[in-house]
């Protein structure tokens, strides 16, 4: 585009009266390599606006109630809660069955040892009965040996 045309357009631009179309043509002109030396100062202007328009937000955005904390998707928390409670319940059940088995085992052991004790006592009683004869021996001995 010719110098005078651009100069006129710039005048309108600085009056805030250019249309978006006209501004676009200005931008195209100043970003091309054929800028008239007299208009060089304005290259920076349009270059800067152009570059500013290319800035993008790098980070991802979070939509949650808590600030700046990465919060899990609600479903994952629900699933996690379910898994944890499931594990807890099954662990409890498992420990309960183990306890019952242990109790049973202890009871049978107790019974067996009780029977064993009875048996031993019986044998012991038999022994003491025969021992009473020793007393008789003493009595008769005393009769003759005074």
């Amino acid at each position, binding site marked *: 585009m010719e110098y005078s045309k651009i100069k006129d357009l710039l005048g309108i631009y600085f009056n805030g009266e250019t249309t978006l179309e006209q501004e676009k043509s200005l931008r195209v002109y100043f970003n091309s390599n054929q800028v008239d030396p007299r208009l060089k*100062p304005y290259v920076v202007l349009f270059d800067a606006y152009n570059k500013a328009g290319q800035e993008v937000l790098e980070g991802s955005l979070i939509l949650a109630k808590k600030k700046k904390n990465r919060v899990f998707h609600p479903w994952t928390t629900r699933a996690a809660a379910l898994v944890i409670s499931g594990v807890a319940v099954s662990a409890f059940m498992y420990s309960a069955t183990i306890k019952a088995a242990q109790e049973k085992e202890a009871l049978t052991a107790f019974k067996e040892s009780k029977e064993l004790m009875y048996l031993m006592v019986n044998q012991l009683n038999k022994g003491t009965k025969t021992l009473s004869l020793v007393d008789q021996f003493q009595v008769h001995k005393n009769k003759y040996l005074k």
Partner: protein
Amino acid sequence: MNQKEFLDIVLPIKNNLYRLARRFLISSDEAEDAVQEVFLKLWKNKEAIKKYRTPEAFAYTMTKNYCLDRLKSKQASNLKIVHTNFENRTDLEKHIEAKDGVSLLFKLMETLPEQQKVILHLRDVEQLSFSEIAKITNTSQANVRVSLSRARKKIKDLLLIQYNYGVQ
């Protein structure tokens, strides 16, 4: 309004909001935080968005207000100190930086009043129409034109001073 509908409205303009926040807060991290904050606020008021005819304009206005609040708040005063420190630190590099016309121009833009800055940004960077800008800034289209003209002229004057100084 579910999350998908919300994102359909808001995600396409996330970069635009980010750029606007960047003009005010300068630091890219701050700007990112600002957009995040605005998104959270919008998400919380997602039912209210329906009432607006142009949710985009609403989001822009919210970003602008949020940034201004940030600048005025105590946190921002800390931020400013950091920033001036930063500027002092790079004082030596100023000549090198000045050669980079783009950053020079953003520095010049910082001298503009808030309203003019917003309008200039929305028009020359985001290329929005006057009616959209009027909605976002809550003024009339005539006012937008006047502010835009003032902002452009001021930037031009400052730029020419810098440019001529550089040449001589």
